[in-house]
């Protein structure tokens, strides 16, 4: 099962995403932003980092990369895409997901082990969780506050498209404590927390994040 991870100039958590895929049992395929070749992967991860230094706006320049033109087309046909942190920002800038991520409310970069609840287990990335499951995964960002119009927010809530929600404490002012969402079709998921850094208890706060990557592999079986 081939899962691609895109490296943009300034991507940082691409190596961790590749490792998470390997640990989950998949074949991790590095993809480069400048090429539109998806190398026959069956799903793609847009990793965390500071692509283009977060200049202009986070993800604003990456969304125009050649690889994104292929991903946008594929996503419109049901291709599974996971955007993590900067990847989530790229997905909102590309309009593959609604809303936007702005500066954390208290203006600081924050790195902490964040409790979350998994609210939508129907996506190929979260099918291995149970609904309502509580997990602990690192967040590490300066621009993680999810904002959307009132209409978008009701759509997301009514259609059950909130995938992850901050539990106990809202670290950044995200509306409705939203930490991750999915599109209407359910194949594109964007999350601010970093499941790829909660895959081994040796280096992370838990192993709760690995299920994102085992889920996609299970979801792809038989495709």
């Amino acid at each position: 099962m081939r899962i691609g991870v895109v490296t943009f100039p300034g991507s940082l958590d691409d190596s961790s995403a590749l490792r998470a895929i390997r640990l989950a049992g998949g074949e991790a395929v590095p993809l480069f932003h400048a090429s539109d070749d998806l190398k026959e992967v069956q799903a793609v991860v847009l990793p965390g980092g500071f692509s283009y230094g977060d200049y202009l706006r986070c993800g604003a320049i990456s969304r125009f990369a050649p690889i994104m033109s292929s991903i946008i087309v594929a996503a419109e046909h049901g291709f599974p895409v996971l955007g993590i942190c900067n990847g989530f920002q790229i997905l909102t800038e590309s309009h593959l997901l609604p809303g936007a991520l702005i500066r954390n409310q208290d203006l600081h970069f924050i790195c902490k082990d964040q409790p979350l609840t998994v609210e939508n287990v129907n996506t190929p990335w979260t099918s291995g969780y149970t609904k309502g499951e509580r997990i602990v995964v690192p967040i590490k960002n300066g621009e993680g506050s999810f904002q959307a119009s009132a209409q978008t927010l009701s759509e997301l809530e009514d259609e059950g498209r909130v995938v992850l929600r901050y539990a106990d404490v809202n670290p950044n002012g995200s509306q409705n404590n939203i930490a991750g969402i999915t599109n209407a079709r359910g194949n594109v998921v964007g999350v601010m927390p970093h499941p790829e850094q909660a895959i081994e208890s040796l280096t992370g706060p838990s192993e709760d994040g690995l299920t994102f990557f085992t889920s996609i592999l299970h979801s792809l079986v038989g495709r």
Partner: protein
Amino acid sequence: MATIIVEVMLKPEILDPQGQAVAAALPRLGFNFAQSVRQGKRFEIVVAGEPTHAQLAEVEQAAEKLLSNPVIETYVVKVEK
């Protein structure tokens, strides 16, 4: 040579923590004139000659597509004399 200015601001309904931080800091320095503060971006685009209508239309497109995020921001294009 002329300079085209694009000013980008967050939409009024969007939370602006940076503007709020500035508004909170002003009184601490003894400045009490502000009821509120919002923070935005200003792009200074230098073009050769006088800007044509076509060029300005292109700048508008660029503002819509790249310089601003229409989900949360609005923009204004003007020419600096």
